[in-house]
Structure formats: C-alpha cells, structure tokens
C-alpha cells in the first residue's frame, strides 16, 4: 500500500465574484517528493496553494494537509508547514538578517540561521534593509524563512522567479537537499526547466483545472512522437503545413507558433516527413533558417494541451 499523500485536494473550488479560479481540482502530493504545479499566470496555482496554507477558505471541495484541515487545524500545522509566498511577505524596513532571525524564533528547534544565511548567500546582504534588496535576494530570504523551522512540508510559490542563474542553482540545491532529508515539497512555477529538472512529479494546470500529471519523463515521452523545431526567414502558415503533412502521412500532426518565426511540428516524425517539411517550404517560397529534431519538452506538452505558449 502506498503511503498516504502529504497533501490531498479533492474537488477544490474557489471563486472570486463571477470568476471560477479553481475549478473542481484534484491533487495528490506524494510524501518525500518534489511536486511542481506548472501553469501560466492566472491558471489558479497561487489560489490553490493559498487554500493549502490556510490563507484562503475553499468555496467547495476539501483540502487535507498531512492528514489535517488547513484552517481548522492551523495551529498544529503551522510549525510543520513552511511557506514562501509569491510576494515574499517580508517587512520592508527590517534588515535581511533580522527578518530571518526573527522568523526562526517562532520555532522550537530552528535551523542554524548563520549556516542557512551562508548557504543562500544571504550573509552578503545581511545588514541591508529588505526594501533595498533585489528581487532575487528577496526570494532567497523568503525561501530561508520558509525552511528555517525544519518543516515537514514546504510550499513554495514561484521560488526562483526573478533570480539570476547562480541564485537559482543555490535554490534548486537546497530543494534537493530538503527532499533528501525527507521533506515534502510543493512548488509552483511557470518555468519548464525548473519543473523538468527539479520535480519528481509535475502537475500541469490551466484555467483552474489539472490538465496533465505525471513524472517529467511520462509527460514528455509519447510513443513514436517527436518534435521538430523550425525557424523561417518570414512567417509561415501552420494550417497549410499541417494539412500538407497530414496528406502525406495521415496522423496526429500539430504545428504551433512559438514566437517570432519559430514553430514546432509534433507528430510521427521520420526521415520522410522531415523531408516533406523541406518540400512544403520550397513549394511555398519559405526559407527555413533552422531545422532541428528533438524530444518533446514540457513546453511542447503544454502547447499540445492548451494550444498556447506558457509565457
């Protein structure tokens, strides 16, 4: 029998006025693993996790955190759940180190503040007021506050937004270490590589619903499918290319516009269909400046599922 989920959401509904932000959402977060909630801005990710943090009351459905109710059992849960809010929630006039030291005092056996500050590079701006910190520095401080109490469950809302690559690596290393120590992590992100590299389990969300879930491998490997990324000198007509490929090799072809003059072609790619893309381009006077063959990425999965780019 698998262990009970660290976090269990059933039929969660949250509405703001007319808008249904979370729409009958089901979600399980496995204990001791990293689960990424992936989706574009406005997908309902933050609202979902705020219901888990006890900051919002659901309009329908149920949420269980470590087997408890996030609102009714808040007092029992607060020491066990570490939270990093999207806006950080840090007092602007206080110094960085003082904030971390202050939050650590709320816990019976906090992590060593100096050690944690050094790990996340907070020691380099320890005496700077929060309002003078860069976005990435604030994120690191907020993350430190979320984990300083040695929580069993860590909920991170967009943990590496606005961070430089080096800070991001420090954050990812810490997340992996927390997992190795037995903590459960739930994070939201709209960064594909963050979800792919960091998460054991990815839940793709859009319009308040889960539209796909699985390990990054499960999500990206569809039997027989691969992706061709092409770039043209000018715009091209995706519908025309799709129709051409479909006539040549009937099947599930998809052509998506990525950005600029870049497109992705998804389907049963083989030498013949690859050549057909070139032929179509020649017939339509389109000059292809780049053509490359690859495995599906989470971004392709998202494009296929929603027809939209994540950015």
């Amino acid at each position: 029998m698998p262990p009970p989920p660290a976090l269990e959401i059933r039929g969660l509904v949250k509405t703001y006025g007319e808008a249904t932000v979370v729409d009958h959402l089901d979600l399980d977060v496995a204990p001791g693993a990293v689960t990424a909630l992936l989706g574009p801005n406005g997908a309902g990710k933050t609202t979902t996790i705020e219901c888990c943090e006890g900051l919002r009351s659901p309009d329908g459905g149920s949420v269980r955190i470590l087997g408890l109710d996030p609102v009714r059992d808040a007092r029992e849960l607060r020491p066990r759940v570490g939270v990093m809010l999207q806006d950080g929630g840090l007092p602007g006039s206080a110094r960085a180190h003082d904030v971390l030291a202050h939050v650590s005092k709320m816990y019976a056996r906090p992590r060593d503040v100096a050690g944690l500050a050094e790990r996340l590079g907070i020691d380099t701006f320890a005496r700077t007021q929060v309002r003078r910190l860069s976005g990435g520095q604030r994120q690191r401080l907020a993350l430190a506050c979320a984990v300083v109490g040695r929580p069993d469950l860590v909920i991170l809302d967009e943990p590496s937004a606005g961070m430089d690559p080096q800070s991001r690596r420090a954050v990812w290393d810490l997340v992996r270490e927390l997992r190795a120590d037995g903590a459960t992590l739930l994070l939201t992100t709209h960064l594909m590589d963050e979800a792919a590299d960091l998460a054991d389990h990815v839940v793709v969300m859009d319009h308040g619903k889960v539209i796909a879930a699985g390990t990054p491998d499960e999500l990206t490997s569809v039997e027989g499918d691969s992706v061709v990324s092409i770039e043209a000198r000018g715009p091209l007509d995706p519908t025309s290319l799709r129709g051409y490929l479909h006539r040549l090799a009937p099947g599930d072809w998809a052509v998506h516009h990525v950005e600029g003059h870049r497109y992705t072609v998804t389907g049963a790619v083989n030498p013949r269909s690859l050549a057909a893309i070139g032929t179509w381009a020649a017939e339509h006077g389109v000059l292809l400046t780049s053509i490359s063959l690859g495995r599906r990425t989470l971004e392709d999965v998202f494009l296929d599922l929603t027809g939209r780019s994540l950015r």
Partner: protein
Amino acid sequence: MTATTGAAPRTARLRAQAGFEVRAVLRNGEQLMVTLLLPALLLVGLVRTDVVSLTTDGATTVDFVTPGVLALAVLGASFTSQAIATAFDRRNGVLRMLATTPLGRRGLLAGKVLGVLGVELVQVVVLGAVALWLGWSPDPAGIATAVLALVLGTAAFTALALVVAGTLRPEGVLALANILLVVLVVAGGVIVPADQLPGVAADLAQLLPSAALGDALRAALTHGAFPVGELTLLTGWAAALWALATRVFRWS
C-alpha cells in the same frame, strides 16, 4: 522528523514579535518623530515658551501639559505609527507570511499590541524624564489610574489603527493617520481639555476617545482623581473599535 519539529513556546513567540515591532519603530526616523520627538518638542515648547497660552485651572503649566503630551504620545504610537506600519505590512504580504508561521494571526495581533505597549513604556520613561526635569510633580495617587487610562486608550487607538490599516491603501492610511493625529491634537481634547474648546467643538470633542484619554490622564495625574466617566467612555470606544476591527480588517 515530526518529533523534532514544533513551535517555540507561545510566550517566546509573543516576546519575539513584540520586540521586533518595538525595534522597527525605534529604528525608523519618521516613526521616532511621531512617537518621541514631536511630543517632546511640544512638551518643552508649551512649558518654556508663551507661544500658546493655556488656561491651566490653577495647576502649573508643566503639570497641566504633561498628561496631554502623554496622551499625544499614546495616540502617535498606538494609532498613527501602528496604522502606517500595519498598512504597509499588509500590502507587502508580511501579515500573511507571519500568519503562516507558528505565530499565527492572533499571535501577530497580540505581538503588535504588546509592541505598542513596549514603545509606550519608552515614551513614558523619556517624556516623563523630560517633564520631571521641567518641574513636573504628578500626583502619586493617580499613577495607577493613569496606567489604566493608557492601557484603555492604547486598546481603543490600536483598534482604530487596525480598522484604517485593514481597509485602506497604505498611501491613504499615511495621509489619514497623520491628519487625524493633528486634528485630534488640536481639536480632540488631547492637549487642550475638551471643555476649553470653542462652541460646539467642546460638546463634540467630549465624546471622542482622544478627549477621554487626555482628560482622564489630566484628572489622574494632576488631581489624583479616578475619572469614572472618561474611563467608561474609553472602555466603550475600545470595545466598539475592536468589534469593528474584527469585522472589517482584511489580511491581504
């Protein structure tokens, strides 16, 4: 792992939050001005100069002015300073973040009230020292009553601060909290007793918590009296404003 995690004891959490709040005020220039510098300047100015002539009802000027200045200080710390700090903390998500730690929402509120009382302790020590240096001789019989009035006034004005900070945008709170402080000081019976105000202002001011606090402190510290009416009014205001605050305060 569960066995080793847990919250710090409640008293430790509250002490930490109260200390954090007090340090935030004492390290902030504008907050220091409202809570300490302004009352101290007013105290010295009113006692040592004749810019404003006061009817002191037979008391010495310093004995008459000091209770009002203490009321002003309480107003600055529990209302103006607290409203502005809480409004910005609310916008920056600080209230939500701290509510997710073992401190919780109640602990956060309790910590804020204790923090205000901590700032007021500093105010009473500093302003009291300045007043004593200026020749203040408070009636010892009224000190306990004065402390009660300070606590009730703090409750009323902290609740008012939360009402304002929990409903308006920080910019609005910044303006309102400062304007209201000035209006209450000039026409709210804080320094000048309500019954000395001209015309209808006197009747109106007498109903305000600011006048109840000012008049209660003057009665207690100058005459050693126990002003039942003012203390009752202050209790009523505190109860009503807390009821309102719990109703309208929004955490985000």
